């Protein structure tokens, strides 16, 4: 395996880390919408931190390694349309993902504050479509990046 092969393997592993976090969040969002008591919501917030290093580290590594691959490659250039599209989509995914993360972090803070009113509000926010739609948006942009990486339009 040469340098390019190693970078490609690590780039792919970084993409899998992002995907793993998105699947984990999907399971939590799906389960969160079906919660009926405040006690049930507690375990969602215990699992969610697993996704943080996966999506954070994976996103940064995928971008850095992707840029290294584009520079090292004889066949592709960093200014190729499909690579620029991937970088724009990566930024978009970060923006939507950031908003999704903030939405659920606020819900978690509310859950930790306690109180009867707060707990009912937590359930209502978990059931509300806002968080789920933001998460769906993040997943859709990730799938677009994956399609772009595999089909390489224009290459």
């Amino acid at each position: 395996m040469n340098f390019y092969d190693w970078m490609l393997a690590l780039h792919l592993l970084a993409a899998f880390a992002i995907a793993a976090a998105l699947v984990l969040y999907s399971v939590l969002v799906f389960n969160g919408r079906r919660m009926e008591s405040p006690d049930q919501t507690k375990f969602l917030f215990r699992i969610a931190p697993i996704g943080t290093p996966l999506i954070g580290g994976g996103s940064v590594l995928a971008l850095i390694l992707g840029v290294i691959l584009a520079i090292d490659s004889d066949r592709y250039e960093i200014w190729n349309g499909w690579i620029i599209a991937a970088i724009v989509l990566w930024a978009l995914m970060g923006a939507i993902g950031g908003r999704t993360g903030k939405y659920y972090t606020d819900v978690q803070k509310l859950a930790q504050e306690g109180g009867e009113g707060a707990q009912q509000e937590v359930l209502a926010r978990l059931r509300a479509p806002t968080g789920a739609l933001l998460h769906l948006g993040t997943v859709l942009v990730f799938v677009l990046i994956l399609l772009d990486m595999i089909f390489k339009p224009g290459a």
Partner: protein
Amino acid sequence: MPRTHGIDLALFVHVIGAMILMGGLVTAAGAGIIGWRDTGGGLRRLSALTLFAVALPGWIVMRVGAEWVYSKEGWDDVPDKLQPTWLGIGYITADAGGIILLVALILGGIGVRRARSGGGAGLLKASTVLAAVLIAVYVVTVWAMGGKPN
């Protein structure tokens, strides 16, 4: 060697299945490990159900995609001896991993049934351990598929 665009769709199916599988395994192992010492079995049940509802469909899509790519790239016509190492790693880990996943699903399924009457914790923990082992196996597989060592 650059690959042709003819396999793009098959490769997309293979990769998206593998990503769903890996995500299901990470969620299942994470929930099982975090809920390891819990007296209530909520997280262990979530672990087993995630294996069934997420990891299993992901494995099926990944395996169908793998066979589709294999066929499209014409590996059927290449003698086994001449096939590259990374392809062998992919086949062995996908199929052996499928058997381990099946065992984890059976253990988890029985564990979830027994959990209704207060038992099954040991079976659910065993299912979690197998999910964690599969993550390690599939990290090596993703590395091999990406770097294609020969």
